[in-house]
């Protein structure tokens, strides 16, 4: 087997087809692992993995292809995940509005979050809320990058983040009460 170099970009290769397939073998566990972990559903992760790699193929076949790398693929996967959550939660705007109505000033919340309970709460949130919290906190992206992925302004993203946190906190408390 050749030495594996995750920084090798398809766009720099002479034979894009062979380079793309080679990248596919290296990147598949990374892309699938990211999607499976974040969406918690292997079937959905497989669908989004397919969409991600097909988008990469479309990109390298287009004029002026980007330098497709594992990091580039994970970025695409992140967009696909957000699109999936958007498609799934058409009632999110109502959820957002409802959350806005009850969100007060931010107060420090120094609660020690339980991993399983947090995952359950995230999975139960509306798509926009789940997306912004996942990108900001689970992935650890800066707000500016979250805004780019969500195609919103930084200000709008911060507002969404605030509402999402409020929704998470309420759901977390309810989930805890249900468990008790």
């Amino acid at each position: 087997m050749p030495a594996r170099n995750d920084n090798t970009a398809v766009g720099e290769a002479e034979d894009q087809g062979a380079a793309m397939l080679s990248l596919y073998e290296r990147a598949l566990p990374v892309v699938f692992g990211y999607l499976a972990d974040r969406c918690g559903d292997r079937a959905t992760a497989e669908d989004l993995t397919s969409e991600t790699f097909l988008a990469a193929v479309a990109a390298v076949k287009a004029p002026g292809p980007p330098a497709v790398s594992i990091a580039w693929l994970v970025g695409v996967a992140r967009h696909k995940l957000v699109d999936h959550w958007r498609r799934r939660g058409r009632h999110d705007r109502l959820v957002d509005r409802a959350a806005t109505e009850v969100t007060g000033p931010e107060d420090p919340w120094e609660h020690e979050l339980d991993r399983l309970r947090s995952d359950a709460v995230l999975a139960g949130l509306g798509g926009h809320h789940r997306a912004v919290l996942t990108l900001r906190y689970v992935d650890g992206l800066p707000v500016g990058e979250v805004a780019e992925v969500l195609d919103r302004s930084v200000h709008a993203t911060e507002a969404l983040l605030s509402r999402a946190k409020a929704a998470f906190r309420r759901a977390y408390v309810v989930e805890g009460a249900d468990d008790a």
Partner: protein
Amino acid sequence: MPDRTDSFASLRRPAPPLGPDPTFAASLRRRLERELGMTTADLNRSDSTAGRGGTDLDGTLAMVHLRVADADRAMAFLAALAGWEAERVPFDDHISHYTINTAVTVRILDDPGSAPVVPFYRMTMVSEAAAAVPAAGGRVVESGAEPDGGGWARAVDDQGLPFGMYRPRGYQGSAAPGRPATGEVGLVFMTADATRADRFYGPVLGWHLQRVHPDSNYFEAVPAVGVFDEAAAFGRPVAPSLRLYLSVPALSPALARVSELGGRAGEVAQDMGPYYTAWCSDDQGTGFGLMAEALQ
């Protein structure tokens, strides 16, 4: 970075690499090949870049041998538990069942001379991989290498763990499966010295072990194969071993089924990433693991 005083900061976690179902991986690869408009010549050239004239599937899990006391009885148990269908093949001294509706073939055999679990990996040039075994500190036990470099070989690695390699030839002799399986090979769990495993399986099978998390002593090798350096994790000597886990849609119903079928359902643990797991045994005492992302 998120505010460190913010409880939400504790949600941060890396996403460890995870191999998908091998059937899905192969299917998506074929789709990409079509989308890329690659010809057979292109694919041959692409495959030749994988070294030793092999393909990128070289070194991936193709089959697992599972030793049991009575192969017919074990097959009945696994058919009822995981929906497996198999071809029954009588040998001179034992019976083997080869599953026909699973992504990774499982050979259930009552050959007492076999090791309890033996993983077999795809390899285009078996002869060259086998030649790399002694150089890496292992031993070839038996070889059916063919003149074109294909065929098969059985070996043990430098830590005494058995494994095999073969060049799949598109065997079409068995009947078509009648139903999809409800349980698949989820994981060949290798307990071994990870540094030595990386040093051995790198030159032999082309593996490059990937630590799943900076704090973890678990490494992914190829899809459905992982190495746990238990000695490093717990600071005491541990004998190398191989265990087979079956992935099922939900753990609790599968455990109930194990009990119904006369097996022993083990305690549920959550010590393998997102998976709930349990170590079980069938109605003859053959050990196997179950893993699922959901309890119910």
